[in-house]
């Protein structure tokens, strides 16, 4: 029982990171029909900024702010420099462009910074646990879950109560109809990227806190799980993305706990088997999404 609660919290902690990334990916997919494989670069670039600041003695409070700011700026810059030029192109072209951005960013850090992973000191409390009702829980999991809950609440408020958020949802449902209503393409797409940057920034804080590594492909693993979570969630449903992320984190942790030790290396493989099963039973993912055709 105790073990199950620990696993639950651990899984939700992991899953929160995937959920935030999946939500950002889904926002961008909604307004552009782009599955953004360059989304991990937000964490990659942030990891180097965090490394640079940490090596000058900055604490994690400063790093956290810097990671979110870097992530937002990187998201907006990538949109402006790369995706604006292929907007309206077919989805395959945009997908390849996002791969291109990933490889360019990774190559730049490889050539001009260091091919080796650099160490970002983890915060002192990362390995601490707190006892709640007799169950020892990791502080970092609780912090991740709390920060994610706050971020999701703020995002939900933004999407429902502000004119920008409503326009973003409208554009995600039918981009051309939103344009006819006067929604500016550039503004709503830039906004979606900035918001996805905030979400990836919060995810990045806790990812980098756990890994403590700046590397040319630091964002690759979280990106892949984010993409899987977004697809599992139904690709296009914001709630589905969050659900997909949490489900993925929980599955990962519980599989690892239940598999015999000598089989735990199969966790990732089994996750893909489960995803394949999900898509056989429910090809549309957790949440069914209706999309308008474009003119």
């Amino acid at each position, binding site marked *: 029982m105790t073990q199950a609660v620990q696993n639950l919290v651990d899984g939700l902690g992991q899953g929160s990171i995937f959920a935030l990334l999946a939500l950002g990916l889904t926002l961008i997919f909604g307004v552009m029909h782009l599955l953004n494989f360059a989304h991990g670069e937000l964490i990659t670039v942030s990891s180097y900024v965090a490394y640079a600041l940490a090596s000058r003695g900055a604490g994690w409070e400063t790093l956290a702010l810097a990671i979110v700011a870097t992530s937002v700026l990187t998201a907006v810059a990538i949109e402006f420099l790369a995706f604006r030029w292929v907007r309206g192109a077919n989805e395959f072209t945009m997908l390849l462009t996002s791969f291109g951005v990933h490889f360019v960013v990774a190559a730049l850090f490889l050539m001009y910074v260091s091919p080796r992973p650099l160490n970002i000191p983890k915060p002192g409390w990362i390995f601490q646990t707190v006892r709640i009702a007799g169950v020892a829980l990791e502080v970092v999991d609780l912090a991740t879950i709390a920060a994610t809950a706050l971020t999701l609440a703020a995002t939900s408020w933004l999407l429902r109560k502000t*004119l920008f958020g409503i*326009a973003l949802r409208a554009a995600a449902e039918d981009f*051309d109809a939103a344009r006819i*209503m*006067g929604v500016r393409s550039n503004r709503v797409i830039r906004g979606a990227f900035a918001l996805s940057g905030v979400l990836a920034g919060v995810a990045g804080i806790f990812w980098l806190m756990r890994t403590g590594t700046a590397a040319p492909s630091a964002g690759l693993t979280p990106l892949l799980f984010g993409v899987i979570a977004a697809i599992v969630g139904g690709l296009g449903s914001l709630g589905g993305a969050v659900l997909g992320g949490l489900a993925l984190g929980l599955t990962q942790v519980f599989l690892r706990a239940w598999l015999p030790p000598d089989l735990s290396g199969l966790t990732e493989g089994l996750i893909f088997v489960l995803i394949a099963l999900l898509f056989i039973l429910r090809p549309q993912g957790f949440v069914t999404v209706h999309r308008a055709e474009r*003119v």
Partner: protein
Amino acid sequence: MLAVDGLSSRHGSITAIRDVSLRVEAGEVVGLIGPNGAGKSTLLNTLVGLLRPPAGRVVLEGRDVTGWPPDRMLRLGVALVPERRRLFADLTVMENLLVAGITATPTERKRRLEEVAELFPVLERRRTVPAGYLSGGEAQQLAIARALMSGPRLLLMDEPTLGLAPSLVGLVFDLVARLREEGHTLLVVEQNARRLLEVSDRAYLMRTGGIVAEGTGRELLDRHDLFEVYLGVEG
């Protein structure tokens, strides 16, 4: 108010239009009739900037606006009630109206929300319902209400009675007449040619991408030959 000269346009598989010229004067209701696939929707989509025309000119109040994007056209006062309405189904009625008023100042937006509530009492009662749950008649009223939220000077309507029960068709035409009395300028596309011509000051008949006849609503109504040849109905 609007002058279109030698306009051509096409996009993908939808009907192309060639060398279309027409005029809409301020305060007029202009009808655009023609069989399916005549290019009527292509023309309207090009006028609001969803499609960029490879040839021809669109002049709005003396300004060349050819190829301007939809959000700029809307800011110049050209609004479209699109074909099949294209409501944001997951957004509530209120949210649909708010997005449509995005170009207005907060004070204007508030005033227009009140105007729209008065014009469409049924929407006021359904304001918190997602647009996807509205009945056909309610949905069409929302589509028109949405276009009015920007305070348009030229309102384009693409098949406003499509899919409506016969009893509701009259409601839409009454509304067209009412908007005209209030001084709005309208360019309306309709399959329901006879009803449209009855409320139109002038009208154009389109067929296979071009305009083949024009005249006052009355004149076209009396051209029984056109009805038989182009619309396939008994005059």
